[in-house]
């Protein structure tokens, strides 16, 4: 299937995702931040991480209001999967496609640990990717 990958100024690891999508036998397609796209054009959208728009204002805030995200919102409205990784997740929160907002760590320290995520929606994209029934062990 055709998978769209968004690119903002400051996006990184986008080529990793491009390669990953290709290795899974799918067809990657860049989605440039200044352009709109036809939601029928792709079957899934991946928003990579990085430091979109230099993380200015609030992480993900400026990217969330860019033209490509208007199309991502329309696309998500059709019920098809959108995956936001790291800064991509922050963009989805700022775009109100995910609930809540991200805050700085209470300790102000960088934290790196494994977390046990509970699968809330058995039909979600992540559950199928992880192929686990109840929990999802995540770095």
């Amino acid at each position, binding site marked *: 299937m055709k998978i769209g990958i968004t690119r903002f100024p400051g996006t990184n690891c986008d080529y990793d995702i491009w390669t990953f999508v290709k290795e899974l036998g799918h067809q990657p397609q860049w989605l440039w931040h200044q352009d709109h796209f036809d939601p029928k054009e792709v079957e899934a959208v991946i928003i990579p991480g990085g430091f979109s728009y230099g993380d200015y204002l609030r992480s993900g805030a400026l990217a969330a209001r860019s033209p490509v995200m208007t199309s991502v919102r329309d696309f998500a409205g059709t019920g098809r999967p959108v995956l936001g990784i790291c800064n991509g997740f922050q963009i989805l929160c700022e775009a109100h496609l995910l609930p809540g*907002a991200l*805050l700085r760590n*209470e300790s102000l320290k960088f934290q790196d640990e494994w977390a046990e995520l509970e699968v809330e929606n058995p039909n979600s994209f992540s559950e199928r990717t992880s192929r686990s029934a109840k929990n999802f062990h995540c770095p």
Partner: protein
Amino acid sequence: MRFGIQILPREVILDTQGRAVEQILLANKMQISHCRVGRYVEVEVPFKNEAEALKEVQKMTEFVLVNPLIEVYKVSRLPEVNP
């Protein structure tokens, strides 16, 4: 017409930046009981009418400048800069 937008984290939100600044000031024997860190934005809008200008500034503030889940804001009119 110029406006200043003062943005602060909501009181219920743990302001980690404010707390870090507060701790450094306390460590340097400054007299401080509370500190909050926010953001200040100045904008200039091409309007002659203040009510219309204020409406536009509020619109842009709520569109992107603040995240209402975690922040509050205050808008104030600023004196014009003489050319």
